[in-house]
């Protein structure tokens, strides 16, 4: 494989009548080792409040407001490490995976020796995604995103720009 | 013709001076209203000692609450209300009965009494009425208040006051006729 990537793509065909769940995003000791930590915890109340402050004049913010309209929660943990070996990427990722029940189906699993390993899981109800977990593990960074509620994946992937806020990580990443 | 300028000097009222802590002014207020307060208790109980005690208590309460009295008319209303309610309270607490004719024998003679015996008999019969009827009759005939004014003092609807008054007069007539 020219890119050195092993990509496994899973197709979800069946409907799983499972409810979207909030998962435990506690990673004991990880924050102490990290140079930078991002911790986003937004329940339904906070999302409704945030929606009121999203601008109508900005296309991205309008887009985000539409996306979070029916969400029950958005949770993010991201740890940026100063050097390789500061944490165990596999153990951290497994800690999240182990919490995902049968209703959670893998959508994408990207594995790379040099870049990010990204796994995306969806809680499916019919053809609707009712929850999403994104696990991104690379030598210097570990990120988990948990979105609870109906998610439009295409719309999420189409989000561009900085939304007028600083980048979440001090370390600029190159995915290209 | 010489133009005369009239200078009006606003003098503080007795009430205002009493509110300001003037004891002489407060004593003056007592003298102005003591007959009314004392008579409410006297007509209620027919007992001189009890009437004196209740009247004193009412004025002590007034002394404590002078700050809340806004005007002369408010003062009169306040005294009538507190005196009446205190009489009802005392009756209900002690179940004091009206004095008998014998007990009332040493009542001070009243001027202008067309028939002292009838007055005495009436006071005794009023004293035998239920407490609320007694209060309503006292306010109606001692203080010459109409039912609308009485209802504010006793805290009852005006129709209830009228009903008490009607029943009281019926009972008094019945008792007078039976003797």
């Amino acid at each position, binding site marked *: *494989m020219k*890119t050195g*990537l092993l990509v496994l793509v899973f197709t979800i065909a069946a409907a799983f009548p499972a409810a979207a769940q909030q998962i435990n995003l506690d990673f004991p000791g990880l924050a102490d080792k990290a140079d930078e930590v991002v911790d*986003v915890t*937004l329940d339904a109340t*906070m999302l409704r409040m*945030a929606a*009121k402050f999203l601008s109508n004049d900005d296309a991205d*913010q309008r887009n*985000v407001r539409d*996306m979070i309209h029916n969400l029950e929660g*958005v*949770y*993010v943990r991201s740890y940026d490490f100063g050097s390789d070996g500061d944490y165990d990427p596999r153990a951290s990722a497994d800690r999240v995976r182990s919490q995902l029940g049968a209703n959670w189906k893998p959508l*994408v699993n*990207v594995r790379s020796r040099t870049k*990010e390993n*990204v796994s*995306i899981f969806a809680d499916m109800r019919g053809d609707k995604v009712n929850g999403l977990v*994104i696990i991104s593990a690379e030598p210097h960074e570990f990120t988990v*995103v948990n*979105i609870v509620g109906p998610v439009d994946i295409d719309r999420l*992937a*189409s*989000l561009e*720009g*900085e*939304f007028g*806020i600083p980048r*979440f990580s001090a370390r600029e990443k190159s*995915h*290209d | 013709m010489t133009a005369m300028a009239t200078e009006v000097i606003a003098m503080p009222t007795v009430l205002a001076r009493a*509110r300001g802590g003037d*004891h002489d002014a407060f*004593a003056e207020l*007592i003298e102005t209203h*003591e*007959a009314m307060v*004392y*008579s409410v208790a006297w007509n209620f109980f027919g007992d001189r000692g009890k009437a*004196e005690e209740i*009247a*004193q208590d009412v*004025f*002590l309460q007034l*002394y*404590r609450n*002078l*700050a*809340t009295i806004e005007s002369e008319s408010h003062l009169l209303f306040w005294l009538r209300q507190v005196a009446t309610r205190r009489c009802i309270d005392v009756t209900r607490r002690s179940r004091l009965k009206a004095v008998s004719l014998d007990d009332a024998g040493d009542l001070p003679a*009243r001027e*202008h009494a067309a028939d002292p015996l*009838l007055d005495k008999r*009436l*006071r005794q019969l009023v004293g035998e009425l239920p407490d609320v009827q007694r209060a309503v009759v006292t306010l*109606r*005939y001692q203080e*010459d208040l109409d039912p609308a004014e009485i209802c504010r003092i006793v805290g009852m609807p005006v129709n209830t006051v009228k009903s008490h008054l009607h029943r009281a007069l019926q009972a*008094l007539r019945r008792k*007078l006729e039976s003797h």
Partner: protein
Amino acid sequence: MNLERDLTRALRRTPPPPGFAGRVMQRIEREGVQARRVRPVWWRAAAASLTLAALLGGYTAHHVIEQRRGEHARDQVLLAMRIAGAKMRYARQQVHGIGSER
């Protein structure tokens, strides 16, 4: 017989025994009865102003706090969505890249 006229006469006001006012004043002295203080109008006005100011201040502070909470929540949402969107795009790019290599 006119009952109402007779009642008016029988129940007319009677003065208390002489010296009543003096006896009341003596009780006030003896029992140390205290008149409740009259607060001057200016004091009440000042108290009302202070209360109003406190309420307005409280409302303003509450409004400012809510504004800050809302803006913070908005920034958090945008950050979360940006991170999620970036990871999604990365995964898609890798999938499409593999597809185009084949």
